[in-house]
């Protein structure tokens, strides 16, 4: 397959994914509503910081941080773990395996295709929260704004690769998505989703910055709201790159091993 043909095929998959996301727009909106946890954290932490800052976070910092966390979570999420688990368990994966394009590219594009719609549905909610909380005060530099898309891509790839690894485990175990719940439990605590990682106990703050959870959320959020020094920015990107490479390689390996034992059940 030529590179040009490959690009056309990816664009066609994107269009299909967008059409599917549009067909499921109500479900997508409900899903967005179920992932408003950062906005709940916002209410909690902004209340605590009303009279005095908590650590280095003022009330306005919390507003900016958690609205940022909500938006970045929307822009970096995927659902391939559930799709893969179902497709492997029911044999639906066969239809994708028969097409002359890699099934993981199909998932990659259809997941990416839903992001614009997801952002469009989440934005009014974020704006409403910002208006209610008295506005947003962030001052990212032009450099930060320039590199933010890179950090978003890295965060998305980490989330997607982790879901691929866990989803591919369905080749061997019946309910691999249960393992994803375990990942999400750690993610809520260690990524900065429930509490900014700089407010964790002293020893943990440094350690969690080297984990994939923070690279997938806390790092792009802190970048967005301009809380990173140049050194922290570079370290953040280096950590993110390492995790993207390691997790993508692991996802590829798990997929290849799993495809060998695929039973194409019922198909």
């Amino acid at each position, binding site marked *: *397959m030529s590179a040009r*043909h490959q690009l*056309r*095929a990816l*664009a*066609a*998959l994107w*269009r*299909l994914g967008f*059409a*599917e996301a549009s*067909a*499921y727009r109500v479900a997508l909106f409900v899903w967005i509503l179920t992932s408003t946890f950062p906005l709940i954290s916002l209410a909690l932490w902004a209340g605590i910081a009303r009279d005095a800052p908590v650590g280095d976070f003022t009330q306005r910092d919390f507003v900016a941080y958690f609205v940022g966390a909500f938006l970045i979570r929307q822009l970096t999420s995927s659902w391939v773990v559930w799709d893969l688990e179902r497709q492997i368990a029911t*044999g*639906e994966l*066969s*239809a994708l*395996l*028969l*097409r*002359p*394009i890699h099934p993981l590219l199909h998932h990659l594009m259809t997941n990416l295709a839903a992001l614009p719609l997801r952002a469009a549905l989440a934005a009014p909610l974020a704006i409403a929260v910002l208006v209610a909380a008295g506005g947003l005060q962030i001052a990212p530099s032009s450099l930060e704004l320039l590199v933010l898309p890179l950090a978003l891509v890295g965060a998305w790839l980490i989330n997607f690769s982790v879901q691929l690894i866990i989803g591919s485990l369905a080749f061997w175990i019946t309910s691999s998505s249960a393992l994803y719940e375990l990942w999400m439990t750690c993610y809520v605590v260690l990524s900065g989703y429930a509490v900014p990682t700089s407010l964790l106990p002293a020893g943990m703050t440094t350690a969690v910055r080297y984990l994939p959870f923070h690279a997938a959320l806390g790092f792009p959020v802190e970048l967005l709201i301009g809380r990173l020094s140049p050194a922290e920015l570079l370290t953040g990107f280096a950590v993110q790159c390492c995790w993207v490479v390691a997790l993508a390689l692991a996802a590829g390996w798990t997929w290849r091993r799993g495809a*060998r*034992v*695929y*039973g*194409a059940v*019922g*198909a």
Partner: protein
Amino acid sequence: MAEPAVQVEGLGKRFEVAERGAGLRAALRALVHRRVRVVEAVRELSFALAPGERVGLLGPNGAGKTTTLKILAGLLYPSRGQVRVAGFTPHLRKYEFLRSISLVMGHKRQLSWDLPAVDTFELNRVIYDIDASAYRRRLDDFVERLGLASIMFKPVRQLSLGERMKCELVAALLHEPSILFLDEPTLGMDVSMQLAIRAFVREYNEERGATIVLTSHYMQDVSALCPRILVINDGALRFDGTIEALTRTIRPLRRVSVRAESFPEDAALADWGRVIERAGDRLVLDVEPERVPEVVSRLVGLPDSRELLVREAPLEEVLRELFARPDDADEARP
């Protein structure tokens, strides 16, 4: 001689299946002690199909037909043996291989459930790199033959089973595969829809010279479409040849039925053949092939003789008898 479209040598496929007994105790025991049974879905299979052949894979449930089809389509890795399809090793799923084949499954779909079928057609056009004018020509042709004009713009979830299968066939054939695998394509369909699908598949084979490999529980599908059948049982090949050859090997007797006002006594009829049914004005006999002309002339001479019919035993009965025989007593082994 042209390279075979499909070449299978000593194919075997083993699955590990987890097992446990019924009830809570068995469920708890399974938590600490997982019992695994090895199932030989395909034991030893060898055959070759020439380009353009229409071949039926027959066998009872669990015989290994669908597993064989999935291996040929590259969905499953074989446990042993060699498989070549269109000159490729299927499980490597090379781009050119996937462009050369299609697998249509009666109980599975490739169409996007909540979108119109035409969206999947368009996706396949790009993925299979089909030239725009060829795509339009083929789609128009398929739409006309299958009467899809009014249904391909409806979301797939709103289509009937038969309408959906027609769309599945179109999605599978737009890239003009040279080898088409059909797994129970008429499952659950009414007779007119079965006829339409059969006619369409036959035309595709005759016009494009494509190889067709079909599994179906509807013997009419197989007898109408496939000059050659491969009978598989217990993961091994039991017969390879024409339906007529199988029938004559397993059930050489011809079935003769007639209506008449009266028939001779049973003892006299036993001399003509084996009495299968005698009820009122109807008589059914199984007769040795070489004695058919003689018996027919006698039956024609019966008072008010009418509706005389001579045919071979139905394929269902032939297969039932074949599967009931022990493997080593199999006269039909190729």
